[in-house]
C-alpha cells in the first residue's frame, strides 16, 4: 500500500495488576481504513491512548511517518497530526459548532469566529461533513455531534484519525454515512483507525484489520483475504456464534400488561405516548429502536423510577404504577439498567455491598443487625454461581471488567426469582463471551417462566433472543412482530423509515 503513517513496535503497558498491552505491533498506512478489532479488555483503548499521548508506554517505540516519536502528552500527539474521536464526545453543549472547534486553539487572544466558520465550511464541504457552524451542540443529533468532533480534529490538522467505537450511538443509516465520509478522508491520504467489536462493520468498511486479544496483537489481515469466521476465531479463540438462540416457545399466560402509558423525560418533554405492550410468562419481547426514543423511560416507568402521566401497568394482575420502587422490587421485578456503573452497581462499594442491594431488607439477613456472615455467603454464592472473576468479595467493584460487572448484576437481579426481568442494553460494551453469558441468563429466566423485556439497539441481538419484536419510535409502539416472521430489514425500516425527516 502507500505511505506508512504509524508504526508501533513491541508496545508494553501495565497498570497495577494488569498487563494491558504486551508485544503489540501495529502499522497503519495512509489511505486506508484500519479496524482495531478485539473483545473488551483486549487492549484496544490502551493502545490508542498511547498513540494519542494520554498514556506513556512502559516499553516499545512509536514511529510517526517513519520518525521516532514517543509522545509525552496529548499535545505532542496533536502536533504529530493524531486526533481521536472518543465514544463520549468532548463537546460543550451550550456552545456553537465553531466555538467548540476553536476550543483549545490558543493562537491569538481574540477569536476569529467568522474566519473559523469559513474554514469549517470548507472542511465540511470537502468531506461531506454536513453541519452548520453556528448551530449549538445541544440542538444537534448524535450523528451530527460526531461530525463536529471529526471536524474539530481536521481543523487541528489531524491526518491520522482514530475513532473509538464510532457506531455505538448511530442509526444504521448514520453508520453508512459515517463510513462514506471516512472513506473520502482516506482517499484524501489520511489514515483512519476505528476501534470496534462489531464484526459486520469490519467486514463492510475496513481495508485492513488488526485483531487484539488479551493485550497482544494477534494478527493483521487484509479484509479481502479474510472472513467473519476467521476474525471471530482470532478474536475470541473459539467459534463464532450465529443464528437464533431462543428457539423454544415457552410462552404462557399474560404477565406484564402495559396499557396506554405516557410519561415525561428528564427535561419534562413527552417521552412515552400511549405506549401499550403485553408480555407473557416465559416470553422475551425485544424492544427495537434507535436509542433515545423512549426506551429508557419505558424501563423506568415499569420499575417505578419514573412516574406515569397516564395509563397503567399491571404485572400478574397487580397494578404497578401505584407501588413504590421498593414494593416493585419486592414484587419480583428485576432490572438490569442501562448504566451499570451509575445505577446498577456502586463502583466504590465492595462486591458484598453490591450483591445485597436488593435484598438487604430481607429478614433472612438478620433481624435487627445485619448478619455479616450471611451477607458474605450470599455474595460468595452469587460470585460462584455466575463465575464472576474477582480476587475476593471485599474488593470494590470498580476493579472489575465490564463483563464481570454485568455478571454480578445479573446474579443479583435473578437471584430473587423474578416474575419480570427488564434488561436495558444488557450487552453494551461486553465482549462475545460475556454477551453469550448474559443471553444464556435471560433465556434461563424465560425458561423459568419469567417475562423478559429486552431493550436493545442491536437488531442481531433482538433477532437472536426475542420471541416477539416490538419497534419503538418517539415513545410510540410502531408495531410488533413475531421474530420468526420478522425480516430484519423490515424492522430496521420501522425504526428509521418511520422517521418524519432526515437529519440535516
Amino acid at each position, binding site marked *: 500500500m502507500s505511505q506508512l503513517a504509524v508504526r508501533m513496535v513491541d508496545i508494553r503497558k501495565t*497498570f*497495577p*495488576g494488569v498487563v494491558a498491552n504486551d508485544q503489540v505491533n501495529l502499522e497503519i498506512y495512509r489511505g486506508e481504513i484500519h479496524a482495531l478489532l478485539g473483545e473488551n479488555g483486549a487492549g484496544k483503548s490502551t493502545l490508542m491512548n498511547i498513540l494519542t499521548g494520554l498514556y*506513556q508506554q512502559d516499553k516499545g517505540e512509536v514511529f510517526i511517518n517513519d520518525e521516532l516519536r514517543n509522545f*509525552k*502528552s*496529548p*499535545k*505532542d500527539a496533536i502536533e504529530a497530526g493524531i486526533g481521536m474521536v472518543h465514544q463520549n464526545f468532548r463537546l460543550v453543549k451550550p456552545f456553537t459548532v465553531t466555538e467548540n472547534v476553536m476550543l483549545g486553539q490558543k493562537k491569538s487572544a481574540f477569536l476569529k469566529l467568522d474566519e473559523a466558520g469559513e474554514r469549517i465550511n470548507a472542511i465540511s464541504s470537502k468531506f461531506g461533513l454536513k453541519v452548520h457552524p453556528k448551530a449549538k451542540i445541544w440542538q444537534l443529533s448524535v450523528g451530527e455531534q460526531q461530525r463536529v468532533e471529526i471536524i474539530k480534529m481536521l481543523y487541528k490538522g489531524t491526518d491520522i484519525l482514530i475513532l473509538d467505537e464510532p457506531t455505538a450511538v448511530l442509526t444504521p443509516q448514520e453508520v453508512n454515512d459515517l463510513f462514506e465520509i471516512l472513506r473520502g478522508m482516506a482517499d484524501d491520504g489520511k489514515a483512519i483507525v476505528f476501534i470496534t467489536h462489531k464484526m459486520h462493520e469490519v467486514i463492510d468498511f475496513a481495508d485492513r484489520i488488526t485483531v487484539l486479544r488479551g493485550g497482544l496483537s494477534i494478527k493483521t489481515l487484509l479484509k479481502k483475504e479474510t472472513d467473519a469466521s476467521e476474525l471471530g476465531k482470532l478474536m475470541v479463540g473459539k467459534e463464532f456464534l450465529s443464528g437464533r438462540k431462543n428457539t423454544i416457545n415457552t410462552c404462557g399466560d399474560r404477565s406484564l400488561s402495559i396499557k396506554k402509558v405516557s410519561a415525561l423525560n428528564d427535561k419534562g418533554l413527552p417521552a412515552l405516548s400511549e405506549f401499550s405492550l403485553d408480555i407473557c410468562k416465559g416470553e422475551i419481547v425485544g424492544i427495537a429502536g434507535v436509542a433515545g426514543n423512549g426506551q429508557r423511560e419505558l424501563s423506568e416507568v415499569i*420499575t417505578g*423510577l419514573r412516574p406515569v402521566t397516564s395509563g397503567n401497568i399491571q404485572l400478574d394482575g397487580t397494578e404497578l404504577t401505584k407501588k*413504590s*420502587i*421498593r*414494593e*416493585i*422490587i*419486592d414484587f419480583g421485578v428485576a*432490572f438490569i*439498567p442501562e*448504566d451499570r456503573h*451509575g*445505577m*446498577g*452497581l*456502586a*463502583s*466504590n*462499594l465492595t462486591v458484598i*455491598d453490591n450483591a*445485597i*442491594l*436488593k435484598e*438487604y*431488607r430481607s429478614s433472612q439477613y438478620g433481624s*435487627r*443487625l*445485619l448478619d*455479616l456472615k450471611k451477607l458474605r455467603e450470599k455474595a460468595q454464592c452469587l460470585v460462584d454461581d455466575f463465575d464472576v472473576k474477582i480476587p475476593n468479595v471485599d*474488593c*470494590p467493584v*470498580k*476493579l472489575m471488567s465490564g463483563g464481570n460487572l454485568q455478571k454480578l448484576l445479573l446474579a443479583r437481579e435473578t437471584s430473587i426469582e423474578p416474575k419480570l426481568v427488564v434488561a436495558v442494553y444488557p450487552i453494551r460494551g461486553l465482549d462475545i463471551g460475556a454477551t453469550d453469558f448474559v443471553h444464556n441468563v435471560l433465556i434461563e429466566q424465560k425458561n423459568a417462566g419469567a417475562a423478559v423485556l429486552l431493550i436493545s439497539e442491536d437488531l442481531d441481538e433482538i433477532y437472536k433472543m426475542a420471541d416477539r419484536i416490538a419497534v419503538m419510535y418517539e415513545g410510540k409502539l410502531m408495531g410488533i412482530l413475531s421474530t420468526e416472521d420478522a425480516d430484519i430489514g423490515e424492522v430496521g425500516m420501522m425504526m428509521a423509515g418511520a422517521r418524519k425527516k432526515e437529519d440535516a
Partner: protein
Amino acid sequence: MDVKKERKTKIVFEKRLQVPTWINLVVPIVSVFFALVFSGIFLKLTGQSPLTVYLAMYRSAFGSAYGFSETLVKAIPLMLTSFGVAIAFKMVIWNIGAEGQLLLGALASTGIALAFPDLPRILLIMMMIAAAMIAGGLWALIPGFAKAQWNVNEVITSLMLNYVAINVVDYFVYGPWKDTAGFGFPQTATFSQNAWLPTWGTTRIHFGLIIALVISILLYIVLNRTRWGYEVKVIGESRNVARYSGMSIKKNILLVMLLSGALAGMGGMLEVSGVVHKLDPHLSIGLGYSAIIVAWLSRLNPFVIVIVSMLFGGLINGGFSIQMFGIPAATATMLQGAILFFVLGGDIFARYRIKMIK
C-alpha cells in the same frame, strides 16, 4: 494540563484504582507534620522558636496528669460534634452547622436546667440531654429539609444558621436569662448541682466521656451493621444506585441531619452540664468547625474520631497555655486550619500515583 515545554522532567498524576491501606495512615500523619512545619514558619516570623512552642503545647496538653485531664475535657464535646459531622459526611451531606447545633443544644439544656433546678439529678440530666438532642436535631433539620425538598445547598444554609444560633444564644444570655447576680456579665446563673454531670475525682473530666465512648461504639454498629447504616453508605456512594434499590433519599437526608444535629446538640449539653455549669457566649471555641477537620482526618471512623478528638483537645488546650509566651491562642486555630489544608491536599496522594517522567 501540560503547559510545560518539552525536555523537562514532568510530574504525572495517575489515578490509583485502589487506595492502599497504608496511605490512609501515612497521609494524615505526613499532613500533620507539614502543618507543623508550615505553622512553624509563622511562629519563626513572630520571633518565637517553633520547637519551644510546640514542646510547651505538648507538655501542657499531654505532659502531666492534670494537663491530660484538661485535654480530655476539651475533647469530649469535640467527639460529639465530630460524630455528628461524620455521619452526615458519610452520606455526602455537608453539614457545616455543628457549631450552631451545639449552641442550640446547650441553649435548650440550659433552659431545662434553669426551669427545673430541683428535679432529681438523673431525671434532670436525662431531660437536658433529650432537650439538647431535640433542639440540635431540629436546628439541623432546617437545612436538611431545604436540601431534601428543594435541593438547597446545605453547606450554605447550615453554615449561615451557625451565625443565627450565636445570636439566639446572645439574645438569651444578654436578655431574659441573664444572671441578675452576675455583675452584668452576659451569662446565665450557675445551674443547680442537680444539673451537673458527675466528674471523676478532682479532675474536670465528666461523665460525658463515658457517653461519648458509648456513642462511638453505637455509631460504629449503626454505620456498619444496620440496614440504615447500609443505606447511608449506599446513598453516600451514589444517589442513583440508592434510588434504583428503592431507598428513600429524602427521608434519609432528613434522618441523617436529625441525628447529626442531635449529636452536636448533645455535645453542647455535655459542655454546659459537665464543665461550665452555665451558658455564656463563649461556650463554643469553634468545636463545630474543628469537628469537620477531626471527622475528615479520621476518615469518618467513630473510633478514630475518639483518638483524633483527644489530639485536637490537646491542641486547643496547648493553644491556651502558649499564651504565656505572648503568643495568641489563635495559633492553635491556625494549626488546625493548616492540618485540614494539608490533609485535603494530601488526599491527592491517596487518590493518585505520582510519577516523574523524563
